[in-house]
């Protein structure tokens, strides 16, 4: 017998859940996390916590709370509230003594709770967020479970529904009916691929020739899936096509965006996805793709503005990397810990710098070239690269081959111009180079030549016959090399012979060119490099290999900025910053992870690779929870922990704690970190498949849908709204990858101070690409996306604030993009003789719903009044629709209707 669970009388529910209810019976024991910690956080911790420890008393960490205060005595005596200074102070009548200081007395019930807690032994509890259970039981329905049918309408589709139903039953609310097939197909497609479903897929599903699960699988395997989910990840990665800050010059980093799309499409396991982005460069023999992945942390801003200190902005980028890493993977705000211990969460000031030590040794230094940048060689060039490397392998060692590989791939390590000191007749020319005059000189402090017989210089030379002399130490030191540099218009990399030396030393560089007037720029020097000699010099063929090597160094293929680690001799030590100021450094620290999280495994290397392994260790309590919470948020518009940016003692408690943990464990252990599996699990649940139809009572009881008694109903994201308009009108391009495109936008939106860069409207299909490919300039992002709450991606965006403003209406009503889409939707729906059919068709193409009579009436009325206007004034029709020769008044009127359809709430919303 099949029974609809909705038809079970409520006393059955009560019976079923009596166990749950019993387990919730209040006991007299005070719970630290639920009852005490919130009081301490609210009332005490701003003076007795991470920032201040007034009176030497802090309630942030257990050991501090029970330690002796300035008075010499602890403020809390376990088991004896009346002897505890803390409680005495809460009661005191003396305003100088009474706590909270200069604030209202605590409510009696709070004092009572604190008193009880201390009398009961003041048991400290670890916050739930910092430990993950090993196993979570799915709420079961025991023997009575037999009533759960396999019927289409049944709610229980997978384990997620058990957790949801348990709470619903507790609240005595029943779930909604399942959504109709057309509705759920549109919802699932928008969630999985970010676009409405294709007509053929919808037909297959509606006709029953494929199951819902099969439809979901098809969607997950569509290449549009990667584009949709990349849009989300790129917010976290702060991906943009420009460098930010005042100059905001362009940046070539789209290869990273394409990497993300491909990683999602190939369902790269999330642990690997994490490791490659944080430390791909540190993997053994990293592939080109693994190097591109590390561009994740090269999305930091780069300051090219004149007069700024490269070191200051290098440090700013490093700080951003720490904060972003913890925001993205740990739902933890590390910003606070930069200056002092975290005010609320168990992270210590010093631990911030332990983390900084992981990130502080990358080669990038806020230079305009953004070096290290990975060269994307052509296949022919790559063949040459391989030949050089084969030669090095054959005659040299593995470690030399690695050096040559790095040097050919991203030209590091080299000494860039900000390494230079002691300028004489030479000047540091704003980040990029050092300018030499006649008789000019500079010093590279404490340089290392790798015992090389050559120095490699990258320069532009404006005159012939400049003699450069390289000395050890200073102007009086022994000459290491002396050679002539001739004119070269373009940036050139050349090698010049020097005498090999093995020790670290100051390197003195001098220029002479008597034929040039004084104080004239004879040479811009960008960098000085050394690399262990190309082996096999005595072998025939060496010369050819060497010249190939030099030729490759002088190629300029497309690039992408990547992470690369400093060689031993360039390593920076990491020191604590006093009060967060990068100029005031104190104790030296080593790489390390916060004590309150999972343990460090000594097998892991003390670098970013180790850190990324620690992050995806199954014992890490936050990585998997963070991910499942955020994927859930993408789909439902609300996280299981609603503060998706923060899982910790300041976050909201999870609406379904066991579900969060169960999903996190399942994601790691059973799904093996597969994002596709996770998304599938969520969207095939009965919870997801509910109708989102509802009523005012339910919105009153559960405004945010945290009980999940209805399906999700949320406005589409900025990119989705545009993508969908282009898709339903049949003009969306399916072209993937490549540099950012520039669809039409209003004149004057781009205000570029320096580089004269222009918004050059893309031609052909590039005008109709998906939003993920739209060029994003940080200081002026694509305006209609901004209106629909996309950000400028200067820093990591965990969640977009969803707004509902009149400005959005103006975009979809008046932006030419939407008019063009409306025109094509009208054109493709036009049924020459039947207005009703045309309107119904346009509506159905857009909303995937058959039109209801009242809606048809409203649109038909609009059509008639438009037609009348366009017939009366046929020039109006012409200027309105300038897409083709002489549009008919009928097509113009239908375009107005199509535009109205694209402005309907049901079109703009995933329901």
């Amino acid at each position, binding site marked *: 017998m099949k029974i609809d669970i909705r038809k079970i009388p409520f006393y059955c529910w009560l019976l079923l859940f009596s166990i749950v209810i019993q387990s919730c019976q209040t006991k007299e024991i005070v719970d630290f996390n639920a009852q005490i910690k919130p009081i301490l956080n609210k009332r005490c911790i701003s003076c007795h916590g991470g920032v201040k420890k007034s009176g030497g008393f802090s309630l942030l960490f257990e050991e501090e709370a029970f330690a002796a205060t300035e008075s010499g005595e602890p403020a809390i005596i376990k088991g004896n509230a009346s002897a505890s200074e803390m409680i005495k102070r809460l009661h005191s009548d003396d305003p100088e003594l009474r706590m909270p200081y200069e604030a209202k007395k605590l409510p009696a019930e709070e004092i009572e709770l604190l008193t009880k807690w201390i009398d009961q032994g003041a048991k400290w509890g670890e916050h739930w967020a910092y430990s993950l259970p090993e196993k979570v039981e799915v709420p079961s329905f025991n023997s009575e479970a037999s009533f759960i049918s396999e019927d289409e309408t049944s709610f229980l589709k997978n384990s997620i529904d058990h957790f949801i139903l348990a709470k619903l039953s507790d609240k005595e609310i029943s779930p909604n009916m399942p959504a109709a097939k057309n509705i759920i197909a549109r919802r699932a497609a928008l969630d999985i691929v970010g676009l409405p479903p294709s007509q053929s897929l919808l037909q297959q599903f509606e006709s029953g020739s494929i199951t819902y699960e099969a439809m979901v699988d098809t969607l997950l395997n569509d290449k549009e899936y990667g584009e949709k989910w990349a849009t989300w990840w790129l917010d976290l990665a702060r991906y943009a096509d420009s460098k930010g800050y005042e100059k905001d010059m362009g940046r070539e980093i789209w290869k990273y965006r394409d990497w993300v799309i491909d990683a999602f499409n190939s369902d790269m396991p999330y642990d690997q996805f994490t490791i490659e982005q944080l430390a791909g460069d540190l993997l053994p023999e990293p592939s080109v793709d693994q190097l591109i992945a590390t561009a994740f942390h090269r999305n930091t801003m780069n300051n090219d503005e004149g007069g700024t200190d490269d070191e200051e902005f290098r440090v700013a980028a490093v700080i951003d990397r720490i904060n972003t890493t913890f925001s993205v993977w740990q739902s933890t705000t590390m910003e606070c810990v930069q200056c002092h211990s975290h005010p609320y969460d168990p992270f210590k000031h010093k631990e911030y710098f332990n983390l900084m030590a992981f990130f502080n040794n990358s080669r990038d230094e806020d230079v305009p070239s953004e070096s290290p940048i990975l060269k994307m060689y052509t296949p022919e060039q790559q063949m040459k690269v391989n030949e050089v490397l084969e030669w090095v392998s054959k005659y040299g060692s593995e470690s030399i081959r690695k050096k040559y590989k790095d040097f050919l791939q991203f030209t590091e390590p080299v000494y860039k111009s900000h390494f230079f000191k002691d300028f004489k007749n030479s000047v540091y020319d704003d980040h990029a180079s050092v300018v030499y005059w006649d008789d000019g000189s500079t010093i590279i402090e404490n340089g290392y030549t790798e015992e090389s017989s050559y120095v490699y210089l990258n320069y532009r030379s404006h005159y012939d016959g400049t003699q450069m002399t390289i000395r050890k130490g200073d102007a009086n030191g022994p000459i290491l090399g002396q050679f002539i540099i001739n004119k070269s218009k373009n940036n050139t990399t050349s090698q010049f012979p020097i005498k090999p030396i093995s020790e670290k030393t100051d390197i003195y560089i001098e220029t002479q060119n008597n034929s040039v007037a004084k104080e004239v720029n004879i040479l811009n020097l960008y960098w000085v490099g050394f690399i262990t000699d190309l082996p096999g010099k005595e072998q025939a063929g060496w010369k050819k290999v060497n010249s190939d090597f030099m030729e490759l160094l002088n190629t300029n293929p497309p690039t992408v900025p990547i992470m690369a680690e400093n060689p031993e001799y360039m390593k920076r030590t990491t020191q604590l910053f006093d009060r967060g100021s990068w100029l005031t450094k104190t104790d030296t620290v080593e790489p390390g992870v916060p004590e309150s999280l999972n343990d460090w495994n000594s097998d892991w290397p003390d670098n970013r690779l180790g850190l990324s392994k620690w992050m995806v260790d199954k014992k890490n309590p936050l990585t998997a929870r963070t991910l499942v919470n955020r994927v859930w948020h993408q789909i439902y518009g609300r996280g299981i922990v609603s503060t998706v940016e923060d899982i910790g003692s300041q976050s909201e408690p999870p609406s379904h704690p066991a579900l969060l943990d169960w999903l996190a464990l399942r994601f790691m252990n059973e799904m093996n970190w597969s994002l596709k599996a996770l998304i599938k699990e969520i969207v095939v649940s009965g919870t997801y498949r509910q109708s989102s*139809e509802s009523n005012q*009572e339910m919105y009153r009881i559960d405004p945010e849908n945290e009980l999940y008694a209805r399906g999700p109903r949320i406005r589409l994201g900025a990119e989705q709204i545009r993508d969908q308009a282009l898709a339903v009108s049949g003009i969306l391009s399916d072209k993937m990858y490549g540099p950012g495109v520039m669809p039409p936008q209003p004149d004057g939106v781009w205000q570029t101070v320096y580089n004269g860069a222009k918004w050059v409207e893309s031609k052909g299909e590039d005008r109709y690409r998906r939003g993920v490919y739209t060029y994003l300039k940080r200081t002026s992002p694509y305006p209609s996306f901004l209106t629909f709450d996309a950000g400028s991606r200067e820093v990591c965006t965990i969640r977009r604030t969803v707004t509902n403003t009149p400005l959005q209406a103006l975009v979809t009503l008046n932006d030419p993009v939407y008019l063009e889409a409306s025109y094509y939707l009208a054109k493709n729906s036009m049924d020459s003789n039947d207005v009703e059919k045309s309107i119904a068709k346009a509506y159905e193409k857009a909303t995937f719903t058959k039109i209801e009579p009242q809606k048809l009436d409203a649109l038909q009325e609009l059509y008639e009044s438009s037609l009348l206007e366009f017939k009366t004034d046929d020039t109006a029709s012409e200027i309105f629709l300038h897409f083709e020769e002489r549009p008919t008044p009928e097509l113009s009127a239908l375009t107005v209707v199509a535009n109205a359809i694209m402005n309907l709430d049901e079109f703009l919303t995933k329901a």
Partner: protein
Amino acid sequence: MKHHSDIVNRLLREKLERETQATTRRHFIKSCAQGMGGLALSSIFMGCDPLSKPKPLAQNSFSERDLNPLSTLAPHYGPKVKSVIYLHMAGAPSQLEMFDYKPELHKYDGQDCPQSLLEGKKFAFIKGTPKLMGPQAEFKQEGESGNWVSNFLPHFKNVVDEVAFLKAVHTDQFNHGPAQLFMHTGSPRLGRPSIGAWATYGLGSENQNLPGFVVLTSGGNTPDAGKSVWGSGFLPSVYQGVQCRSKGDPVLYIDDPDGISRNLKKNTIDAINKINKEEYAKYADPEILARINQYEMAYRMQIAVPEVMNINNEPEHIKQMYGVEPGKESFANNCLLARKLVEDGVRFVQLFDWGWDTHGNVREGSIDMGLRNKCREIDRPMTALIMDLKQRGLLDDTLIVWGGEFGRTPMQENRGNKEMAYKGRDHHGDAFTMWMAGGGIKKGASHGATDDIGFSGIDGRVSVHDVHATILHLLGFNHEEFTYEFQGRPFRLTDVEGEIIKEILA
């Protein structure tokens, strides 16, 4: 748990019933009441056979207020002002160079802070003995009130008798983002409505053709905390601030496409909203109601906004008075626009001026150079704003609030190992200055005082919640009763705190 939740349910039920009976317009319950009334509502809380759960879809009806959410409403008691202009200096200006004169601090300039001054002080970031930095501006007592104003503000001293200073405001937030959120929403975390949203929700707008809450930014950047500082939180979305641009089109795509008449646009919006109302009947999602309203607002704004946002039509002497720079984004333009907006009945105008974070690390962000320039940018316009409102008889109906998200330390930002080119002060929340002017404000008042070095308030300390309570009071709201029911409990702007600052009220 069971019997506990029974009690909660009973209390909730009683509360709901009380509210349904009281014809309070402030709760959306009223809109439900038309359709179903208390019985259906209480049935949810009493628990019943789920099958009998009443949900005839057509009952998702809406009240007049739902369909006209900006309609003008009367507050709790006689309001002193009709509108608010809130000038926020994002980044936190230094009170010690503008209003809070500390002659003692001069004496210790460049010296280690004496222990006698440090004793008993709570320090946020500073370890050891910091160096003090004397005021970098010169001060005089100005006007009849004799309140102190620095020479960084040569115009403002002329209106000093119009304003009331709060010299000992404090906040417990010390990073820009959270502190701005706290200052504007009463909570340092996301999710609460901003004060402008509360005001518009409570009072509606006097001009149905303009948003009730308009936001203008200057200084080249938007606040660190993003759109949430003018968000509507859990209030209906229609009450969030609408950001207009003071340069170029005030709003993008404000013009109808070529060939589309006003009439046609009207018909289009009518059709959209007719269908959206059908949609609401089915889904009951309040966002649909908001969208219906926003479409109507968009239509009306298309005419009203270009008019009000056009400063070119202002007479030359007014332009000069503010020092406006037409065609540019500037604080001066925004001040003039603020006047025009409140003149046209906009309830809450929020100005954010960015660039006040004066740590001393760069020229623009220094106390000696950058701050002076920032003061120059705001001095004339904010003075003009007060004078202009006054000469139009609008000052008595308007409240102007000025402040940052916190203040700055009397100590020079730690320069430790390396001499810095510029002088800077660190973030400091223990004591900073704000001022208010306009209707209901005691002219020339100064409330609160800080210690000799300006580190802590020693008298008349007021909190962010107190500031909020006072603003709401002037708008005619009792902050303790002005609540919104969300997730089963009433929320207020002032949480459980806040006291009206009577000392600055007329």
